[in-house]
């Protein structure tokens, strides 16, 4: 089922949570909405689900306007951040709930419901726990029950709000892989919200990066990591070092020196690069020439704080752990990949 979000705006008490957002989700895709808290990603998910109504704009399901359809009519599977399992129902009752509440004409017979619940339990690898109550399950198990409950109604679209947010790191990694397999097997159009970039990059076919109620960039993991389209995306995804530069004569300048990087355009700009993605040089004919002013150990590298241009700029770069750089010693380097964004005004 294709889902199309078209010029959607959502205001809460005059405060815009989403500002003219458009997004096309293709059938069978696994999409991540990624952004810091307050970026509007959960709002967008709830609008697609029909749990909130947009102030302006349309949401289309398979080309059909769903704006005025209720949550029930949209036939979506929604997995809540804190699972929202019904605490007074067993696992089996939770999973079968969506089938039990169907109108009499569409409701499968009890034996059929039981069979379907059994199948879903097998799929989420929790067979044998159908008589347990939610508070007798671990976080990861609850998460999977919530997913099975949403799947039971055979939704057209599966929506997950921070699906792994409340789990510890190890379980999170396992479930991440499990969800990817699950998606590949069932082929559902799936949208999930996360603030964890690693999760978004690893899991999603396409990542939608959001900030302050707008979509900053939509693209594959390679796109958003290697070719970020804005300073925000570059800062938010992966690690970034940045420095104020100037573009002139097809070159990048730091103050009055060229640094050996080509650039089209003119005027003030900011240069971004990844701290680990650079080459260290011995001689310097047009490169970054700096002085080490700080050093701290990361897991697999040593991060140096380097002053450029006689102390007017400061960047962070990663060097091998056994690199001999000492405080106050000079250091020359050049980023392998970089992005230059003109500074407006």
């Amino acid at each position, binding site marked *: 089922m294709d889902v199309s979000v078209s010029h959607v705006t959502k205001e809460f008490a005059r405060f815009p949570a989403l500002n003219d957002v458009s997004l096309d989700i293709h059938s069978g895709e696994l999409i991540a909405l990624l952004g810091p808290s307050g970026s509007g990603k959960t709002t967008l998910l709830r609008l697609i689900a029909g749990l909130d109504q947009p102030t302006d704009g349309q949401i289309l399901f398979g080309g059909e306007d769903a704006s005025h359809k209720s949550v029930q009519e949209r036939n979506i599977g*929604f997995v809540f951040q804190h699972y929202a399992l019904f605490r007074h129902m067993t696992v089996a009752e939770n999973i079968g709930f969506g089938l039990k*509440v169907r109108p009499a004409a569409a409701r499968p017979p009890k034996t059929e419901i039981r069979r379907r619940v059994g199948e879903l339990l097998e799929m989420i690898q929790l067979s044998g726990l159908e008589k347990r109550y939610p508070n007798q399950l671990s976080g990861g198990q609850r998460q999977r029950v919530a997913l099975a409950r949403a799947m039971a109604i055979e939704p057209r679209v599966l929506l997950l709000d921070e699906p792994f947010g409340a789990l510890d790191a190890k379980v999170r990694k396992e479930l991440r892989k499990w969800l990817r397999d699950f998606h590949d097997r069932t082929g559902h159009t799936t949208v999930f919200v996360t603030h964890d970039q690693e999760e978004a990059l690893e899991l999603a076919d396409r990542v939608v990066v959001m900030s302050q109620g707008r979509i900053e960039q939509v693209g594959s993991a390679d796109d958003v990591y290697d070719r970020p389209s804005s300073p925000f995306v570059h800062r938010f995804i992966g690690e970034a070092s940045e420095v104020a530069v100037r573009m002139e004569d097809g070159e990048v300048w730091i103050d009055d020196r060229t640094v050996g990087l080509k650039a089209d355009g003119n005027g003030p700009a900011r240069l971004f690069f990844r701290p680990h993605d650079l080459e260290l040089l011995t001689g310097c004919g047009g490169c970054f020439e700096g002085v080490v002013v700080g050093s701290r150990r990361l897991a697999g590298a040593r991060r140096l704080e380097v002053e450029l241009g006689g102390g007017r700029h400061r960047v962070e770069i990663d060097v091998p752990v056994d690199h001999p750089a000492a405080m106050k010693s000079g250091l020359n380097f050049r980023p392998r990949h970089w992005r230059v964004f003109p500074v407006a005004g």
Partner: protein
Amino acid sequence: MTDRMLRKPHLRSPTDETLLTKLVLIGIGGSFLAFFLFLPLIVVFVEAFRNGIGRYWDALVEPDAAAAIRLTLTVAAIAVPLNLVFGVAAAWAIAKFEFRGKAFLITLIDLPFSISPVISGLVYVLLFGSQSLLGPILKRYGIEILFAVPGIVLATVFVTFPFVARELIPLMQDQGTGDEEAALSLGASGWQTFRFVTLPNIKWGLLYGVLLCNARAMGEFGAVSVVSGHIRGLTNTMPLHVEILYNEYNMAAAFAVASLLAALALVTLALKTLLEIRFDAGNAGGRRH
């Protein structure tokens, strides 16, 4: 290692007190309870049975007493279900939705708690009395509110209004709307969501509220006294009947009827404790009393 730790004497936890302090504090608390709570309760039952079980029984089945008991049960049977419905509806609206004037509505619900029951009764006298606007109109159609059962029911509903709502609002606010949204997203209708999800989530709190509401409905004196007119056998509830018997120096009968009310209080207390245990088991982290 454990042994050595166990043998270390006189290491009190910071919040603990010496034995003497404990005894004094517990003694004060205990004697206060005994004097102000247990003693009066015992007196009620002792006085009620002073002239033997036969006289006790006679005092209860005597026509005016029986009528008072019947009236009290009738009033409670009308007022409690009404406030059950009102209370659930009000709590539902306040806890699950955002709207203008919510704080004002919460204050309004508390109003019966904050004003004297006598005033609550007077309000109805002013509203439906013979000098009022509504009274004469209703009288023309043969509808009697004041000094009749409808007035007593109205006054009781007013006084007991907050019990269910007050019990449910914090509970439902605490539970949020997540479960309801989940049910809706699974295709449940509004009514199904209420029946299968909301109601089971609040059932212990609801029972608890109903119990308190009932206890107050049966025991209410002030507001009912103002609107009832004290017509024997017709508009006297149990608390009013006790007062009349007492004023007539009919102590044994007064205490016999009073003992019924006291017994009701004890049953309510026992049920409340039982419910709290269930409540605790069902809603860890919920609000306690």
